[in-house]
């Protein structure tokens, strides 16, 4: 007579462990189906820095989907609208760009109409930024923040410099003049330069 192979019957503990292992495997599969989301966008920004092999510094600016962190000699800025990694179809977009930062005030582009200056001197209370773009000259004013930042927002978006077709934000590549004032209105610093072209890492295959 053929001997029937009887599967050992699992007890309550065994069945619970089996179910939990199945749940773990299915959860991992589900997590991958949504491109590995993390609890917050800030965590995703940190992960994207690692993913794009960018240096990680101290987070100095955060506004909605925009992040800027400052390390040694370099800032990493990012637009991170989701909590997931970019997929091959770009369903979860993102954009990170690296900006060289010197000892003095250094610009970081945030959008087509927005520039953030880092490393402002402590005495600066107010700033005035003038950019000469292809559409003409625009000036913006802003209050300096305690952490040495100044966020300039222009009324009109700027278009990218045609001489540099790879620039991502319209402010990049254009010359600027930055004036910083103390609390009593005295001119503290005047700096001329060009908003650099920052290399962008976008969520692309």
């Amino acid at each position, binding site marked *: 007579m053929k001997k029937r192979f009887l599967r050992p019957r699992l007890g309550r503990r065994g069945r619970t462990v089996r*179910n939990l292992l199945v749940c773990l495997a299915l959860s991992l599969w589900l997590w991958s189906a949504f491109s590995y989301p993390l609890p917050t966008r800030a965590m995703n920004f940190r992960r994207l820095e690692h993913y794009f092999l960018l240096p990680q510094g101290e987070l100095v600016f955060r506004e909605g989907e925009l992040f800027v962190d400052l390390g040694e000699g*370099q800032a990493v800025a990012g637009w991170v609208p989701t909590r997931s990694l970019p997929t091959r179809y770009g369903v979860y977009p993102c954009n990170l760009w690296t900006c060289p930062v010197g000892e003095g005030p250094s610009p970081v582009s945030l959008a087509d109409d927005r520039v953030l200056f880092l490393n402002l001197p402590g005495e600066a209370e107010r700033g005035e930024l003038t950019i000469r773009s292809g559409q003409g000259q625009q000036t913006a004013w802003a209050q300096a923040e305690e952490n040495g930042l100044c966020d300039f927002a222009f009324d009109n978006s700027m278009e990218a410099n045609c001489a540099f077709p790879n620039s991502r934000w319209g402010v990049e590549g254009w010359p600027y003049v930055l004036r910083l004032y103390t609390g009593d209105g005295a001119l503290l610093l005047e700096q001329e330069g060009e908003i650099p072209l920052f290399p962008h890492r*976008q969520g692309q295959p």
Partner: protein
Amino acid sequence: MERDNSKQTGWLDTAVAGIRFGPDRKAVRAELQAHLEDKAADFRRIFPDIAPEEAEARAVEEMGDAVEIGKELARLHKPWLGYLWRASKWIAILSVVLLMAINILNNDHYQSAGYPLWGGFSEVRGRTEGEKIQLGGYTFQIVGAAYLDYVQDWRGIEDRVQVYIRVSTPRFWERINEGALRSALTMTGPEGWVWSMDSGKVQTIWEEGRNELICGLQRAEWGLFHDTYVAYGDLEWTEGEPVCLEFDFGKGSFTLTVDQLERVVME
């Protein structure tokens, strides 16, 4: 009868009172009740003249101290295990249903990346085990190098170098971003030949109606923990000349060199 039934009921209530997980309490109570009924039936069989109420009362006495039994049952039937078992059952069912729904709606049987977990587009030529460099949790290694020699410029296709780079990481959900690798990688060769993998050069094979990449980067094969890319360069190479891959990420830079390439005659 009612009095004896209440004695039985009282005994059962006391015995199972310590079991906090509801389904276990019901199951154990039913089993104890069955034992009580069996004992009462045994008494009626052994002593046919005994009254049914007395048989049930003696059965309760025979079962023992309800409080002591209750303590032992409470020790054996932990509530958290019961709740965990229930929860695991429902989570497993829900996960299966959710995954089925996602698969049906998306018609996507792979990761959301749109590729299977492992596979390849092309075979690695000139397999080798190069030096490993680690940066940012990723390990870079040259795993293949070949020189494709199109005999007598067969069909006008240019000779080219292929160097295969494997990038591995235990964090399978963060395999290296192809765009980041492309932007960071430059191939250099003899006589100052340089090509940045950020751009590509193709050659059109008119007879076959297709384009062939002759300078640039392409994915060759992949697994759960690694990706292998092939970097092409249309440089003039001769035996013994090294080809270098220079990596410049924001996090750091390094160079991998390959000295030996396998000459593959394409005919």
